[in-house]
């Protein structure tokens, strides 16, 4: 086997790691073992999405990860990153899954804003923002969707009008995660209303504390205000806050979305695996008609299918990463990830309700609620998965048109 592995260094299906990568894995594993608090899930409530009471806890957690050099692995060193490859990123996320580590709070900054600033930013912007994203000193949110432009994002109507060396912003964003705790926003606004809709948009780095910015929590299906509406009333933004060229915001914004899919992709698969292991634990302690759920043949089929789908996400991701490591563009395999994750996660949450049976009706606050009512929260929250970050319908259009080449 050894001699075969050596002959394979040319490049072939191979999951063996280099000694450096193995050493990195060991280092991550040891660090996580020493630093994860055993009862963190009970402290903040186990869920995919951080709940409000968890923010301070998670801010400290990301700070700790950053101090240990585990945030921004693939970012260049001059931007405060580690200059490593996607392979180390993958290893880190795998180990975090195995160790059941808390999530990364400033995920929109780390996954989207930072890489986009590194790609398009001026020297001053690159000095100013990325490091504080990694340390979680400054949290970012994403100002894309509006009440009348969700899937049709390029139809956005928030205006930015030039006034001296400033732009004056008026309009509204919606579904803005983390806006209530964010310091900065990736803002898309229309700077040329006469240009075709994709060509008149500019990407701004907006200070959320600027006068005229109002954040209103938007209570959602879970009862939590995780999302927000953000209103802009004559907000003045200096022209040095434009990212990339004026009227080139669509291109810059698309880059952000590409990073979103890549970066969140690692995290999503890993979270799914953690959630699935939680589901199996739940199934082991529940009974249906006097038989443990995991011994029921139908339930075994359903759980096994979730396991298979979760694993498929991992290997489909590995194929995309391999292309990146070889300096190629990801192929069709990269497009499917978000959709598969959404469908699998929603099916998993439905199954959690099925396993709980009548107990699925009880929410947090009841002594009878299972696992503190956390499944009820994640079940409800999962309905947003097929809407946020590009609806499933839009994802299918993208695959149909850009990957398969079908006509519009």
């Amino acid at each position: 086997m050894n001699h075969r592995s050596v002959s394979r260094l040319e490049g072939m299906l191979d999951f063996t790691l280099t000694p450096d990568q193995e050493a990195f894995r060991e280092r991550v594993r040891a660090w996580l073992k020493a630093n994860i608090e055993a009862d963190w899930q009970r402290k903040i409530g186990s869920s995919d999405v951080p709940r409000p009471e968890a923010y301070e806890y998670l801010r400290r957690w990301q700070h700790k990860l950053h101090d240990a050099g585990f945030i921004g692995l693939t970012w260049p060193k001059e931007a405060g990153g580690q200059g490593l490859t996607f392979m180390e990123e993958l290893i880190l996320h795998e180990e975090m899954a195995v160790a059941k580590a808390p999530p990364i709070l400033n995920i929109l900054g780390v996954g989207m804003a930072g890489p986009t600033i590194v790609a398009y930013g001026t020297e001053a912007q690159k000095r100013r923002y990325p490091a504080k994203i990694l340390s979680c000193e400054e949290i970012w949110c994403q100002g894309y969707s509006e009440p009348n432009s969700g899937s049709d994002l390029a139809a956005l109507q928030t205006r930015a009008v030039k006034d001296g060396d400033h732009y004056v912003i008026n309009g509204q964003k919606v579904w803005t995660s983390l806006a209530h705790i964010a310091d900065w926003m990736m803002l898309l606004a229309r700077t040329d209303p006469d240009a075709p809709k994709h060509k008149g948009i500019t990407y701004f780095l907006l200070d959320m504390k600027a006068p005229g910015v109002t954040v209103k929590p938007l209570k959602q299906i879970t009862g939590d205000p995780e999302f927000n509406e953000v209103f802009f009333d004559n907000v003045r933004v200096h022209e040095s806050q434009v990212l990339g060229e004026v009227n080139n915001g669509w291109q810059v914004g698309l880059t952000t979305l590409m990073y979103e899919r890549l970066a969140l992709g690692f995290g999503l698969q890993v979270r799914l695996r953690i959630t699935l292991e939680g589901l199996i634990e739940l199934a082991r302690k529940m009974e249906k008609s006097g038989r443990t759920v995991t011994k029921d043949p139908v339930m075994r089929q359903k759980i096994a299918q979730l396991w298979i789908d979760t694993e498929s996400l991992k290997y489909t991701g590995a194929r995309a990463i391999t292309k990146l490591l070889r300096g190629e563009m990801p192929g069709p395999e990269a497009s499917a990830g978000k959709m598969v994750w959404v469908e699998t996660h929603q099916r998993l949450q439905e199954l959690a309700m099925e396993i709980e049976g009548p107990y699925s009706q009880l929410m947090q606050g009841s002594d009878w609620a299972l696992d503190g009512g956390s499944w009820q929260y994640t079940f409800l929250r999962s309905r947003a998965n097929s809407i946020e970050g590009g609806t499933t319908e839009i994802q299918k259009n993208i695959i149909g048109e850009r990957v398969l080449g079908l006509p519009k």
Partner: protein
Amino acid sequence: MDFGFSQEQEQIRATARKFFENECKSEFVRARMAEPAGVTDDFWKKLGEQGWLGLVYPEEYGGTGLGFVDLTVLMEEMGRAVMPGPFFSTLLGGLAILEAGSADQKKEWLGKISDGTVKATLAWTEPSARWDAPGVTTTARAAGGGFTLTGTKLFVPDAHLADVLVVVARTSEGKRAEDGVSLFLVPRGAKGLGTKLLPTMDQTRKLCEVKLEETPATLLGTKDGGWAPLERVVQRATVALCAEMCGGAQKVLDMTTEYAKIRVAFGKPIGSYQGVKHRAADMLVDVENAKSLTYYAAWAVDENVPESALACSMAKAYTSDAYRKVSGAGIQLHGGIGFTWEHDLHLYFKRAKSSEFTFGDATYHREKVAQLISL
């Protein structure tokens, strides 16, 4: 980690695709469907000349000496061409000889398999259609220094063409059903060996009933030690089959996408309608995930890592569903033309069906996954 194919493997793919486009066109496939042989001497000889009949056997036994991942690349292309003939059955027999045979037996058979002079098969399942050890009821009796076999095998691929059959039989009733299983070699024309070709839905895959009545047989490997090598053979063959299924599913997606671009309804290409576009996107997801799990399984069985059984079952469970769904959607999106005998879609649809139930369907393998993750 490098989860992609090497340049050499991409070269195998390119060579194979071109070869099958020239040598295994639809007319060729259909002519072979209509006759018992399922292959021509000329075509078989050419497969041998390419080095494909002995691709994974070591060079010392006359094989090409390539790896299992190389085979999956080749099988994908064979599936794309919905290639008929006894390639897969001969692979089953050859792998069994490789896994279980003595050095002399490997020398005797693998070279002849590799150069195309011998076709082989594996006679395992019986009318009970079980994939587990208790399903092996064909009995082997010691007789005059050798053995005789008695029993009925069913769903045996290409037994009517095989020069040698590897037969799974019971030599003893051990503590576990697995303990008393042995493998035997039975040459064509052996006394008491009767093979009957059965009409099959997928005419590109010929299946037989094989009757053994006190048929003389030579032990392959060790007595009572047949189950472990059989499991290794079946694991490898299952992953190879998954690769073939992926190739077929990809071809159906390609055909369907091309058709959706040119077929006009209500003044527009049907691919512009979301009802069609979204279903095509679903097909792509099925195909890509099936490939991911199959490539992973290919790596796992090639390296013989501990999770190889799990990887194999995940791949077969997913790919069985995926090929069935994709080939069904292909017919649906083609409309009436997709339902005709003239169009090639039904060849893929039927291959998907026969492959689905070879070495366990999705339900069977999901249960295996459940066991392997300790549910």
